[in-house]
Structure formats: C-alpha cells, structure tokens
C-alpha cells in the first residue's frame, strides 16, 4: 500500500475520532432546532485559545522540518513549542469554562450550554490524549534516540496536532455560527 504501520494506525485513529465528532455535531444540529435553544455567547478567550493551538501546530511543523534535516536542536525546540502551546490551549479552555459558569451559563441550564461544554471538553480530552504520545516521543528525543523511527514518529505526531487544530476549527465554527 505504500503506507507505513504508523501512518495506517494514525490515519485510522483519526477516522474513528472524526466519526465521534460527527455524531456530536449531528446531535447538536438536531437539538439546535428545538424552541428552548438559547445560543451561548462565545467567550473571546476562545480566539486566544485558537491562536495557541495554531502556535502549537506551528511548533510541530518546525519539529518535522528539523526531523527531515536530522537537526536535533530544531526538533527539540519544535516539540517543546508544540507541547507547551497544547497545554496552554487546554488551560485556556478550562479558564473559558470558568468564565462561562461565573456569568451564569451553567451546564444543565440550557441544551446549548451543555453542548458547548461537551464539545469543548471532548476536544480537549483528545488533545490531552495526544500529549501522552507527545510525552513518549519527546522523552526519546531528549535521550538522543536517533532510531529509524524518529522522523516518522515526529511526523505522525505533527499530523495529529494539525488534525486536532482542524477539528477545533470546525467545532469552533459550529459554535460561532449557531
């Protein structure tokens, strides 16, 4: 087939995760049409968080570049930025939840609220899942592991990061436009 094992694994995983978000989106669009729906005002913090995720992807892209040139230093910097901004993103999301609850948008008060928390929480969980893989890859990099796997692992990690950004953009768009 021309794909490596890691690629098949990650691409299949991304398909499965996409199905999950497709279902949530489907339920959201279905529920949106009921008369008790009151849209949630999107905290402007979410734009900042989106920026963090973009920076995280940029970091990973940098790391991939470094991997292609076998430049260990670039890889380390790229990975660090990628991981750091992913954490910043998740923290920013939890801060946004706090902001919403203090302004009275409780999770059970309205279906739109519930969906907001559910959607952002599910996405954040998958980002954190990616952090587990990031941890493993970063550990090996910092141990100066130059096995044949490294460029591929970093590439796949980057793919997953970009994928998480893409999913976020679509979900964010959904929340903004409805």
């Amino acid at each position: 087939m021309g794909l490596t094992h890691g690629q098949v694994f990650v691409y299949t995983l991304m398909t499965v995760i996409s199905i999950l978000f497709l279902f949530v989106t489907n339920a959201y669009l279905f529920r949106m049409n009921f008369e008790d729906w009151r849209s949630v005002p999107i905290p402007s913090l979410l734009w900042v968080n989106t920026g963090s995720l973009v920076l995280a992807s940029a970091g990973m892209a940098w790391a991939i570049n470094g991997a292609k040139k076998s430049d260990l230093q670039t890889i380390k910097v790229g990975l660090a930025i990628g991981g750091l901004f992913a954490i910043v993103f998740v923290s920013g999301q939890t801060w946004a939840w706090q902001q919403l609850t203090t302004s009275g948008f409780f999770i059970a008060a309205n279906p739109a609220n519930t969906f907001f928390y559910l959607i952002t929480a599910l996405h954040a969980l998958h980002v954190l899942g990616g952090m587990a893989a990031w941890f493993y890859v970063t550990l090996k990099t910092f141990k100066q592991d130059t096995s044949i796997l490294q460029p591929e692992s970093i590439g796949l990690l980057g793919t997953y990061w970009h994928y998480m950004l893409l999913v976020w953009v679509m979900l964010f768009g959904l929340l903004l436009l409805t």
Partner: protein
Amino acid sequence: MYEGQALYHPKGWWTRYVFSQDHKVIALQYTCVALAIGLTGMFLSLLMRMQLGFPGLFESIDAGNYYQDVTMHGMIMVIYLLTALFLGGFGNYLIPLMLGSRDMAFPFVNMLSFWVYFLSVIILVCSFFVESGPTGAGWTLYPPQSILPGTPGADGAGILLMLGSLAVFIIAFTMGGLNYITTVLQSRAKGMNMMRMPLIIWCLFLATFLGLLAFPALLVGAIMLIFDRVLETSFFMPEIFKGGEVLNYGGGSPVLFQHLFWFFGHPEVYIIALPAFGIISELISCHARKNIFGYNMMVWALIAIAGIAFIVWAHHMYVAGMNPYLGFFFATTTLIIAVPTAIKVYNWVITLWNANIKMTVPMLYCLAFLITFLIGGLTGLFLGNVAVDVPLSDTYFVVGHFHMVMAVSPVLALYGGLYHWFPSVTGRMLDDRLGKIHFWITFVGTYLIYFPMHYIGFLGVPRRYYSNEQYDFIPQSVNDLNQFITICALIVGAAQFILLYNFVVSAVRGKEAGSNPWGACTLEWQTLESPPGHGNWGDKLPVVYRWPYDYGLPGATDDFVPQNVPDEQIT
C-alpha cells in the same frame, strides 16, 4: 510488524506471562477473561429462567433483581463475552499466524488493549457490589427510565459503572482494532495478497472496521447519558412527571438515544456474526476436505454486509415513535442485507457438495451452525419487514430470533473454533467423546429452548416480563412451556462444564496433536514448532504461493496443499 522491527523479547516472569506482548499469550488472556465473565452471564440467565419457569420458588428473585439479571446477562454476553472472545481471542491468535507475520503491528498497544479490557470487566463487576446493585435498565439502557428511580441501579452507582465500563471497553476495542487494521493491511507474508487471505481474516478485518466506526456512536450516547444522569442535563430527557412532581429536565429526545445506540447496535451484531462466519468458512472447508466454494463472492458478500450494516439500524425502532415513513427505507435495506447473507449460506452448503466430509467435532458444529443460523436468519426476515414487526416486536419472537442468531449459532461456531484450534494452542487434541457429548446436548438443547419462543411470540407474550400471571390472553400452557425451557436451560448450562473439563484435562493429558492434525492449508499450522514459539516462524518468514483452500487439488497425492508450498514441491 514492519521491516526491520525487532521482535520484543520478554525479560522476566511479569513480561512473559502477565504483561506479555506476544499475541498468542494476549489471545489466551482475552479468552480466559471472556469465558469467565461469560459463565457469569450464563449463571444470570439461569436465575432469570428460574423465575420464568418456577415463579415464586426463589423468593429472593424479585422484580428488581430479575431486571438486573436480564440487563447484566445481555450486556455481558454481547460485549464482554462475544465481542471480546471473537475479536480479542480468535483475532489476536489467528491474524498474525494466518498472515505469516511474527506478531501484531504494535505489540505494546496490543498488550495495553487486553489490560484495558480487563479493567472494563472489573468496573462492570464492581456494579454487582455497590448499594444500588447493577443497573436493571435492559441491555439497551434506554433513557429516561435507565437513569430514573423506578429502575434498579438508576439512582445509584449501578448505571454509572455500566456506562463507565462501556467507555473503557470502547477504548480497549479501539486500541485493538487499530492494531488489527494495520496488521492486516501491512504485515502479510510475501505472496499473500488480499485475495489469498483466509476468509476468517477478511471477516475479522471487516468486523474490526465495523467496530471502529460504530463504537463511537455508543460512546457519544453513553457520555451524554452520563451527563444527563450526573449533571441533570437534558440530551435525552424530556419533561417528566414522576413521584408526584415535575422533574428538572426538559426538551431532550429519548429517540435520539435510540438512534445513537442502534447505529452502534446493529453493526455490533455483525461484529459478532462476521467472525463466526469466518470460523465456519475455515472449518467447513478443512473438515469437508474441499475448497470453499465461491471465495470471491464470499469476500464481496462480506463487504456488502459490512457496508449495508450501517444503513439498517432503525429496524430496531419501527414502533419507537420515529417518523413512520423511515420504516419503508429501513425495511428495504434490512431485507436487502439478507441477500449477501444468503449467498454466504449457499456457498457454505455448496462446499459440502461432492466433498469428502469428516464428521469431526468441528464439522458437527459447522453443520449445527448452518441449521440454527438458517432459523435465526429467516426469522429476521419477519422482524425486518416493518409491518410484520408491529405485532411481533417486543415479544418472545424477538427473544427467540436474536438468541438463535447471536447466541446459538455464533456460540456453536465458537465452540467449533475452540475444538479446531485447541491443538494449535496446546499441541494436544481435545477429547473426542466428551466433545461429541457436549456438542449434542448443546445443539439439541438450545434448539429446544429457543425454537418454541417464536410461537409464544406469535401469541403475543411480551418480553422483559417478570411474570405473566395477570394476563388472561396468556394460557397456562405458556407457563408449562417456560418450565420445560428452564429445565432444558439448566441441562445445557450444566453441559458447558463438560467443555471446561475437557479443556483442562486435555491440556494436560490430551493426545498429542502433531503440527497439523486436521491437515489444514492455512499458515497457522505450518509453523516450525507446535505450538508456535515466540516469533512464530523461527528465522525465515513463510512465503505464500496459493490461496488457502487447496483441498482436493487435482494432481496432488495428499488431499491438501498448504499455502506455503510452491507448485514445484507438490508431490
């Protein structure tokens, strides 16, 4: 495994036997846990049968307990026994061996998938020990009742532990599933293109594909149900008046849960059926000493079944209150899926024509599978036909149908598979006489249990009833039948211990099997050592020259030619 990947070697007792990354050990681990929890599920069904057959005999079986038994029996059997055993057990053992690979593509993730499965079983079992007891919401867990008082386990930890356990199981399944997809696509031996894979590998591959795409629907439904229960949100909860007051919910749709559940639930039954089909294809051709008939059509039929499986789900919802015009669509797709399924049955049966059939225990199980799957599949045509489903849905006709097609025939296939591959795993044969006794009691017994249920279904006896006493339209003869069925169930239940006894005794003292006791063509019998050692193939990976069904090949002396034998070497 990929080119150049080093085979993982265990360093000590823990990594050899407990946290093993060898697919064969992991397969055994899955099998043992699945069989253990399956026995629990069987015990629960016997409790149910005691109430139905001899109401009042055991005072401790009250309506609450009864529904807890019903629910846990169903969920355990479908998910924790059948899915785990077919995919985790058979899948893990057979995929690398039959493909000529040393192990799965990601042995570490494989090991993790078992332990996460084990964790899901532990969480499930915990629900038996909490104050509310396990959930009694029915295996389908429909809201609103599944999270409201009035259903056992709903206002305690019971339902939460169930949903949590399912979520953990789904994570395990996803890990295992990604492994299988990657291994089948990437790790085949040289010369083994997709159309030279044994049919069981196709079945396991497509079942995995079904699961990866279907389980997310259940996960979403479960998460939303947890939210509704814990955070009092209203994904599925409309306005509810209960206990004399209007509850704090509103606006949700119970039917939405059903759509999510059955989008998962229907593919789930094919996740169980497909590996069973695969086992039958392997066993029937090997023990009839004849090539499987119509390999290409078998593959296309499997692909068609896997595809159509995603567009039939609402046949579980014909009278659920969804738009009735959807009934036309789903009835049509449901009856269409009967066609590729029928083709598979024809092909198995035609395999027997002009064959040279050995009446071994695995062959007996194949034949019994065919007869019972015929019954189960044909009764499905009644239920799929939307108008006919009106009088029959939620009656014992449904109970009879799904047990025939999910419990009886796949379990017969499963047993056949266990008898067939036991020599590969242990190097010894299972005792033949005990096998035949176990077979006959199980086959005839389960037929007697489930066949009559269809007729009380025609009468209109509803399912999930703790007792029928109050209803005049249900005659005393139904109670007599329930007694008869209970007695059969007790006998069949007891007979399963013959299999367990056979396992234990034969593993220790069984007749030595040699490397290929059945004369099979597939690669798992062509290893250097028997049972296969770690890494399966020694120094050289096998090369494949033919399809897996060269039984009765004209021009060869033996009545079979294994896949890794080139033409020049045929005697």
